[in-house]
């Protein structure tokens, strides 16, 4: 299976199975990914990130370290930001996952956070970007659920959750400020 899972209500997509020669134990999982039901057979050691990228075809989630440092692989699991390189695929059985592909409808407008990233030139190569977008999306949603106001310094601290090697972070911070309603400090109009 490749591409975004079909969003036809009630349809169940089947993920690509493990290689035949894979020696570790297999598990049947059912997981909701970007609103679609996905059934999959996964091996014990399969990283969630690899499951999403290579078995479900959602390659928007990137791997920058596979060790929990860089944040590039961040997705939302039951609404919380999770590093998908630190979770195994069998662990997401029965859970709900959202990836960067879900942040905007395929032909619809970008989300407020995505829009701010382009307005503020908050991405260069774009490899780190899905991680920042998912992390900030979870951050905004959690604050809203808790009825909490986000201060500018909370927002700045949240940005330390991911690495970006291209931008020097300044425009990422501007994008985040724009998205969260603060003065972006942008100098290019």
């Amino acid at each position, binding site marked *: 299976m490749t591409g975004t899972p079909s969003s036809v209500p009630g349809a169940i997509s089947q993920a690509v199975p493990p290689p035949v020669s894979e020696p570790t134990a297999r598990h049947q999982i059912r997981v909701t990914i970007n609103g679609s039901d996905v059934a999959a057979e996964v091996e014990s050691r399969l990283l969630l990130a690899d499951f999403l990228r290579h078995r479900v075809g959602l*390659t*928007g989630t990137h791997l920058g370290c596979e060790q929990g440092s860089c944040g590039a692989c961040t997705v939302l699991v039951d609404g919380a930001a999770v590093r998908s390189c630190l979770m195994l695929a069998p662990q997401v059985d029965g859970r709900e996952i959202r990836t960067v592909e879900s942040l905007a409808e395929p032909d619809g407008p970008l989300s407020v956070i995505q829009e701010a990233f382009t307005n503020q*030139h908050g991405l260069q*190569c774009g490899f780190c*970007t899905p991680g920042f977008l998912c992390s900030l999306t979870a951050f905004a949603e959690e604050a809203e659920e808790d009825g909490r106001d986000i201060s500018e310094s909370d927002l700045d601290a949240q940005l330390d959750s991911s690495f*970006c090697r291209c931008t020097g972070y300044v425009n990422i911070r501007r994008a985040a400020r724009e998205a969260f309603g603060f003065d972006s400090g942008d100098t290019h109009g």
Partner: protein
Amino acid sequence: MAESSDNGPTVKTPFIGQSRLRVEDDRLLRGDARFVDDLDIPGALEVAFLRSQFAHARIDRIDIAAALESPGVVAVYDGNFVSGHIKPLLNAEELRVPPGIAALNPVNKLQPAPILATDEVNYVGQPVAMVIAESRYLAEDAVELIEVDYHELPAVMDPEAALLADAPLALLGEDNNVGVHVRHGVGDVDLALSSAAVVVEETFATQRYVCAPMEPRGLVARNDPFTEALTVWSTTQTPHRVRDHIAESIGISSDQVRVQSVDVGGGFGQKGILVVEELLIPFAARDLGRTVRWIADRYENLTADAHAREQIHHITLGADADGRLVAVRDNIIVNLGNRNMVGLVVPYNALCHLVGPYRAPNVDIETTGVLTNTTYTSPYRGAGRPEATFAMERAMDRLALELDLEPSELRRRNLITADEMPYRTGILDRRGVPQEYDSGDYPQMLDRAVEMIDLDSVRAAQATVSTGQSHDRSTTWRGIGFAMYLEMTGLGPFEGARAEVTPAGRIRLFTGAPSQGQGHRTVFPQILADALGVRPDQIDVVAGDTDTIPYGVGTIASRALVTAGNAAHQAGINLRARILEAAAEVLEANPADLDMADGIVSIAGSPSVELPLADLIRSIPKQLGGSGSDGLGETSYFQPPNYATASGVHAAVIDVEPSTGRVTIVDYVVVHEAGHIVNPMIADAQVVGGVGQGIGGILCEHMQYDDRGQPLASTFADYLMPVASMVPDIRMDEIVCPSPTNPLGVKGLGEGGAVGPPAAIANAVEDALRNAGRTDIVIASGPLSPSRVLDLLREERHPSP
């Protein structure tokens, strides 16, 4: 073209100079990018390497039998097998010595890298065997089963120790550990120093660090049985060079290799040189008739891909009583790693950029590239300039101290002025011809930086500082530092661009210079649109596909805008003429009466006649009595006649927290000059991105080895990367001195941002410590991590001079 017609005649507004939002972003933001590892090719096999665990060892035996039996394994290759099929690796272009430099009698040893080690390994991480399996997981399982008997040999990690007469050889069979050596200068330094009023002599070093783009290196190779050609999708910065290397080393025609850049997640130099993995994967794809994918993981990226920056400078400055430089001497030691991979590139860049924006009549610089049992090195953003600038600008601050001058004032007294442009330094540039700065206004940049950073108020604040070590966390010591640099950008010999009209009436632009995040799909259309008479949104860019343009160099060395940008400009001018000529045939008009805007050809005085490009190109094949020329396309190659010299001043205000050793950047100003700016938003962001990397370099990044050659940082838990809170909102200003070396008047700026921060911040930290009474501390190297700063503070106070 964009037009505005408020009142009176229509004014055409050039697209060059506009901060246009990027056309790249939408796909990237939606997760629809196609990085190499995103390509979905059914049946693709994956690769894992067995890499040396020893810094230096003899290989007595390799046994791959068990690995071959491991589940899912398709093939296992060792050095003995591949050495019969793939020629050893040489980065031939980088190793070339131009005739002018050859006249300096340099040492530049050719030390081809074995594709897989056969009898000797020279660094931890060197590929010894390659396993190809159904998945990376299965390939890594099999790697565990390969048996290798190593006999450990003496190893050397420290470049100065490697130069001692009794040092172990890093690479057996060589006479010594010198890979590169050149000495060059002008005037008589000994004489000048003997009569100088002040002489400072110091050692400054830049530690080893790693480009570490967020996407590590990777490639996918597929052999197509129909065409018998190889397609290689790659993260490379230099696709045409990779094409030629693959063809040459596996013995096929370059027509049988197509290298395509896809979305690439940063490069910074690491992806600008060719490594053995990039030959092995295409070879295996051909050997097996299967698609093969290798994506380096972070462990490989940090320990087994190119490192950079490690240099030691023993520098001497002599000045007269007013602080005017009379002599500069430097003895530069560059740690090349296990072999000479890229020749003079970094050592000579350091040499010819050392003195930078200053006037120095007598110069003597010796640079030695030394082999050690560490991974090989590549240029990294700035390629010798950040290291040289660190030495020179630290030394300038030491000289200012000797002379009791404000460091910015000492700099001002020595700057080459705008009137002196073009300025010849008296030494040879990297091409081996007399070095000439084309344009610039260094004093103006410095004045603006001093004003923006508000030097006077920082000095006033410093006057109230409490001195002495304090354990009160609220105590901070403030310091200010400057760094100036220049950068000869737009490296030749050429870059190409092909512009053509598509059947749908759009324009496609092909170039050999791919993007790793620089926004070529946004910037190049701004240039081409102006030259051609279309809108940027009518242009699609295909960059870094070797089948679409026969020759190319790539995106390295701050060159893409200067070389590919001017090639696109020329191609646009030529294509416009070709379009108007063809339209004249179709419309039976005089080409001189025709104009084109927004991709529609019109005739002066006949407003009812409009010929869109789609109609024009469709009518050409059917045009009876036409010229018979083919469709509408033009290729241009631009060869820069000289470097376009960009420059900058960085000014940093920092606070040191003496209780913790933490350095916080309070304010950071960049004033730079890079000729005409095509897209200010993107240009500024390139500078800021470089500043971020420079800040990482001086505050946290360090690739260390232990004394047996084991890398001490193999994950991002040990290799400390800069994060958002370390980089303040950089304040920027720019001046414009158009380059006379190219029609667009542009200069490269991709690297400049990374050049200034190490020196500016180290100068600021030393200034802070000095102001707090620690006049004994000389900051000789980075990274200025909290523990390192605490160590400096704890060091025994030397008696004040």
